[in-house]
């Protein structure tokens, strides 16, 4: 009997915790800056990405042709960009400024020119 009551209590507690987590994550998700970026030989679109300092950013990359890469050493973030799927990079910019990024998976004749910038505003 006591065991059963304990079990019920545990289940209720777990349910409350889950609801709290769900609401919590929902409100955080609302604040995120989600930006879709496409990559193709030999450009990103958009090639200038503007985000706000201190607000979490989600970059959602898709490739329209072949494997590309995304490397932004100034912000310490990188990812492969595979065709046929979405690669996401999440980060929270801590300082304002302009940060160059480039393709770091050799993709062809224009590979060295495949670049862009992330502008972090105050």
């Amino acid at each position, binding site marked *: 009997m006591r065991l059963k009551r304990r079990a019920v209590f545990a289940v209720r507690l777990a349910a409350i915790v889950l609801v709290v987590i769900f609401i919590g994550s929902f409100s955080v998700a609302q604040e995120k800056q989600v930006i879709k970026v496409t990559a193709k*030989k030999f450009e990103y679109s958009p090639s200038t990405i503007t985000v706000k300092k201190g607000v979490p950013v989600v970059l959602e990359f898709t490739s329209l042709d*072949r*494997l590309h*890469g995304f*490397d932004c*050493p100034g912000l310490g973030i990188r990812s*492969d960009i595979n065709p046929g799927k979405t690669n996401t990079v999440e980060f929270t910019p801590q300082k304002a400024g302009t940060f160059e990024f*480039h393709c*770091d*998976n*050799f*993709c*062809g*004749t224009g*590979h*060295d020119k495949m670049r862009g910038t992330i502008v972090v505003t105050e």
Partner: protein
Amino acid sequence: MKLDIGRRHFLKVAGIGGALLASGLWKNSVIAAGDDFVFLQISDTHWGFSNPQINPDFAGTLKEEIASINTLKSPPDFIMFSGDLTHVTDDDQERRKRLTEFRKVIAELKIKDVRLMPGEHDASLDEGEAYKELLGPEMHYVFDHKGVHFIVLDNVSDPRTVLGEAQLEWLAADLKKLDKAAPIVVFTHRPLFDLVPGWEWYTRDGSEALKLLMPYENVVALYGHIHQEHHHMTGHIAHHACKGSMYPLPAPGSVPVKAPVPWDPAAPYRGLGFRTLDAHVKPVKYDLTEYSVNGEVMK
């Protein structure tokens, strides 16, 4: 077989970045052994490149080098082309054409022991398909020559700039068979260490390969890709980059955006050439000699 003396000797020479090697000062200390031999490294021939502002003799530079190699006073036992044999093209048929032409051009070499490996320009876009068909089949392999174990690694055919799990396992298995003192020469196209990661002058999992090589006492790593002579140590492992044979690239990290160094009419072919390595097995030591395109020893 222990080659401790050799290692210390080699360290001393390798540690000063090849300056002494080029000067000829070290030669007095060499204990001649019967097994000494010469091999030659040539790199980044970029066959198919055709920008006359960068190299007006784009069709003749490699042929000139071949003529120089054919008349070397002490001919090498073998020649290694360390990648970027051809210049990148987005067209699969054109890539095949360039690889085929390259093969024809180098057939003029008198030395017939010629070994090849791909660079990212040859093999990244189709993961080595055309290369394997025309110049392969192997893109990573080992061979032994007069007591030296040569390991050719492929850090280009996976476009992610990696060697990859499978190749690292293969390397570990190959190394396991060797004595810790065995003389080992590793060839890669890109450097295994982080030279300029932002320029892709690195191998993303290169540190894994270096970790496997570190317990071996006599390892030297030769590479291309950066189109200039460069010397660097990671622990006791010396890394030597070879000049290119089509266009030079700027010094590591010296400019914001990496681009070929334009041709200087006042100094044609400047920064281009090849090198020979005098391999001494007892003690283990390699003397590097840098040559210009026309076969002059660079001082």
